[in-house]
């Protein structure tokens, strides 16, 4: 897997940040290849699946981990998502991008996960402030080397975890899947305007959470 090219969001902390727009464009170009890889896998080419997996594993796992707030649960759901991809390969057709297909499965798996727990998504354990504190300081949520000591990363994680599930879902999907709002709306089962509104609210709350850090750092911008 190490030799397979991954998308811009897999870049390490020391790597230069890829511009989000170019990354999204680049990943959109890969979308066609993703469909072809999936078709090749459907026809029995395991190497095609390995390439597909390498492209999407990082983003998918981050989406799940940050949406569920539990690394173990994220690992379980992550396997379930790929199992469903494998199981449904024979019925796969290139109608939409593979990312839309993948994240749609992931979205459903998250819903199933909450259903199994017998809990509504709004009752997410990390919505509790004490739990949020634990999550923010836990090993799995440690900032990378460059920003380990900054309060900004911690504040962002906490703000992200405190978002209502629907708003966090749209934000994470937009960041991790490289899909447009239309696809995200389809995955989450709402209209485009609703998805856009959720994203707007999420951005507002995150920005508010980062405001004190920005003032300390003297930064500006969105």
């Amino acid at each position, binding site marked *: 897997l190490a030799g397979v090219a991954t998308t811009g969001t897999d870049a390490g902390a020391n790597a230069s940040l890829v511009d989000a727009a170019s990354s999204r464009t680049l990943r959109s170009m890969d979308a066609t290849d993703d469909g072809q890889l999936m078709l090749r896998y459907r026809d029995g080419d*395991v190497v095609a699946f390995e390439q597909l997996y390498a492209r999407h594993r990082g983003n998918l796992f981050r989406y799940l981990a940050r949406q569920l707030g539990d690394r173990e649960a994220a690992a379980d759901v992550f396997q379930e998502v790929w199992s469903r991809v494998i199981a449904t390969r024979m019925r796969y057709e290139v109608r939409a991008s593979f990312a839309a297909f993948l994240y749609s499965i992931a979205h459903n798996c998250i819903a199933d996960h909450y259903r199994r727990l017998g809990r509504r998504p709004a009752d997410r354990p990390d919505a509790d402030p004490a739990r949020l504190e634990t999550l923010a300081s836990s090993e799995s949520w440690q900032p990378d080397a460059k920003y380990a000591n900054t309060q900004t*990363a911690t504040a962002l994680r906490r703000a992200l975890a405190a978002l209502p599930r629907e708003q966090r879902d749209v934000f994470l999907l937009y960041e991790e899947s490289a899909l447009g709002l239309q696809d995200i709306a389809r995955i989450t089962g709402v209209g485009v305007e609703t998805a856009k509104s959720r994203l707007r609210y999420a951005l507002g709350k995150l920005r508010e959470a980062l405001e004190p850090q920005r003032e300390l750092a003297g930064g500006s*911008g969105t």
Partner: protein
Amino acid sequence: MSRPEDDRMLEDYLRGGSDLSRRYRELEGAEIPADIDARILARAADAVRNSAVRRRGVSRSWYVGAATAAVIVLSVAVVIDTGVLDSMAPPLKDAVAPTRRPQPEPDAKASSDEARTPANDGAVTRANDTTAGTSPPASSAERATATINVPTGRADALPAPAATPPAAASTETQRRARLEQEARSEGVMGPARQAAPAARTSSSFLARPQAAEERDQAEDPESWLAAIIRLREAGKAEQADAELAHFVATYPGYPVPAAATPQAPPGARDRD
């Protein structure tokens, strides 16, 4: 209600390169447990292997299914060919008989009635239709002959193409009927001869199609020769000669009795 700065922030964010996006990407990525990658890839490979095995199984079962279907199709075809057509014959008969059968004239009706048996009464085949259709009824005798030669029972249940006589046989039948009618009108054909078609029909209607019946009749050189002899005895030498020429053309090399050949003028022998 959204604030203008929220809308502006959203537009900046969607345009890409926002500070929030950058900070989000700087967060340390949640690392995937090492064993999960191997497990998922192994599962993907197993699925392909299993489906390949399953596909081989499916292809085998496909052959079995195809063979079964072929056997069923063949069985149905045989059943239709041998049995089902029997049940289809009556509607055909009912549909065709009233419209296509010509009304017999009084003189033909007698011979027709005499030749008709309960078994063949009302039986009409395409052969009869062909005869009536290709050449309009030249005489009532032709129609009667055509009627009495129609076999019934299983014979009329045979497929239509098989029952359709060849054109030559049909023409021959008409010619023979005309010949016999003329001989009958001259009194040269006895009652036994007139009853012959009925006897033949009743003895052969169970299995023989009309075409075979007519062919037999057309190819019966003895009765043809007998008719020629009767014509000659009745003094119809020209007609007998014509029939004889036709007979020789039809059965070249067949021994022709002297009674059927043209009689030498009385004076010729004297000259010899």
